[in-house]
């Protein structure tokens, strides 16, 4: 039951993957303009040491760690939420899960980078493998983050298999050979057969079951990472639930922002491979509900 594409869809969805228009390059230029100074400043930090940050005694951890917490917080959104929706068999989940899981994967990747950037000796990162102590909270964090990232990537990949097959089948003849090959390998021989759909659904469900505890573990571990220190305000048992609730709260928040933006440009919904249109009022309703639900919980645990 492979889908067919209208000409309009093909223009909208496939062509931009092969032909990069001005708008695309402008976005790239904009992003490069942001990243380049950042990279240069990071090189400066590498050369001069972490002294270039305004960290000091006793504030040993600063913006990098805040970013880290923020990013893994919002990464909670994606996969856990899509997993919950998957398990509850909500049928309008598809367009959301794609966005949510992308947020997770990219969020986690950036979060991992934050840790590396925060290290005084990033060149010795490999020591964590060579001499790693599993008793150390940072190692739990590394393990948990890596596992969550891998699982999230896997979940996103599973969701994407039919799409990749679509790309494989709709590739223009002028397309580079390596891309055709890549799509062919990644689509794992997807034909859209009913049995394949059944197995995929099952696999996604299994991963969803896994990913919820892994996600929760990442947030509790990160909170314990703080509560094993003796800094005032950190050394507290409430930090576990506080982080989890905070993560769900902020994660959903970010998801709403992303989905709203997508809905505004009507791009995300249009490009979904299963076009069960998500009414905007559903977004609004659930946004209100979750805000009302989570704000008191989060505020409660933080006070």
């Amino acid at each position: 039951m492979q889908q067919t594409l209208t000409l309009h869809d093909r223009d909208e969805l496939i062509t931009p993957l092969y032909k990069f228009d001005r708008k695309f390059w402008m976005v790239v230029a904009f992003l490069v303009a942001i990243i380049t100074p950042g990279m240069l400043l990071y090189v400066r930090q590498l050369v001069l040491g972490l002294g270039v940050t305004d960290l000091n005694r006793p504030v040993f951890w600063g913006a990098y760690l805040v970013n880290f917490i923020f990013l893994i917080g919002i990464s909670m959104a994606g996969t856990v939420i899509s997993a919950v929706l998957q398990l509850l068999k909500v049928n309008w989940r598809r367009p959301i899960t794609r966005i949510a899981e992308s947020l997770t994967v990219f969020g986690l990747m950036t979060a991992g980078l934050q840790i590396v950037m925060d290290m005084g000796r990033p060149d010795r990162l490999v020591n964590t493998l060579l001499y790693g102590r599993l008793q150390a909270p940072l190692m739990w964090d590394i393990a948990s983050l890596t596992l969550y990232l891998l699982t999230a990537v896997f979940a996103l990949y599973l969701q994407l298999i039919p799409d990749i097959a679509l790309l494989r089948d709709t590739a223009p003849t002028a397309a580079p050979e390596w891309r055709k090959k890549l799509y062919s390998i990644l689509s794992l021989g997807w034909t859209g057969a009913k049995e394949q759909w059944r197995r995929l659904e099952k696999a996604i469900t299994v991963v969803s079951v896994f990913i919820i505890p892994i996600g929760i573990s990442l947030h509790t571990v990160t909170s314990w990472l703080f509560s094993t220190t003796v800094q005032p305000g950190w050394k507290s048992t409430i930090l576990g639930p506080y982080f989890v609730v905070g993560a769900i709260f902020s994660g959903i928040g970010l998801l709403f922002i992303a989905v709203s933006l997508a809905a505004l440009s009507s791009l995300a919904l249009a490009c979904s491979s299963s076009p069960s249109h998500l009414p905007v009022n559903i977004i609004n309703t659930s946004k209100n509900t979750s805000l009302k639900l989570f704000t008191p919980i989060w505020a409660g645990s933080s006070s």
Partner: protein
Amino acid sequence: MTDWCMVIDLEKCVACQGCSIACRMENNTPVVSPEEAKNGRAIRWNDVFPLPVHFGPDQGEYPNVKMHYSTRPCMHCKNAPCVKVCPVQATFVDEEGIVRQNYDRCIGCRFCTVACPYGVRYFNWSEPQWEETLAEYRNPDQLSVNGSLEGPAVRPVGVVEKCTYCVHRLEKARARAAAEGREFRADEYVPACVQTCTGKARFFGDLDDPDSTVSQLSKSLRATHLLEDSGAHPKTLYLAEG
């Protein structure tokens, strides 16, 4: 088994800060620029400070005021939080009860610095520098264990460093005893701060030896630890004032 321990008699301590500078000269801790120092980045493994650190109105008003001063090397905890949080075992308690630091392995995550209840762990925010000729006086000693730097030779930027009870002095004393073909005795080794203490307030020795000065002093009614409730089981002992 030897269990090295320091005892500080606060009644004899006169807050002269000789220990701070003796430590600096012995262990090659750099002088940081005035701006860095004001930003709380001075590296003095052994620091002297007023207590309470921030003297507020609730601590009394003139003339009913009593300032105190304390001095603080590493506590060499038996249940050291820094060791427990280190992801790469760059810091560890050795067989003789000294919390040591492997400067070649440390990844600079600064977890130990936030975990230490006593703030004795110092991060090299920038490349340690000695202006021009000042570099001449650096201690040439270099202790390496299994090829990894642990001694007073200058630590690179980005690693955490700390008081090691001058463990290189211990190794030097051992090497000397071995070279002279005799048994090493516990009184052949004291850290630099103990040696220089103007008030003779510091004592050092083997806590496991019931006859040593430190174990005798540890039985004193004045003997106490800094933040005994920290759960870290700090070892460095204080003899309280009064």
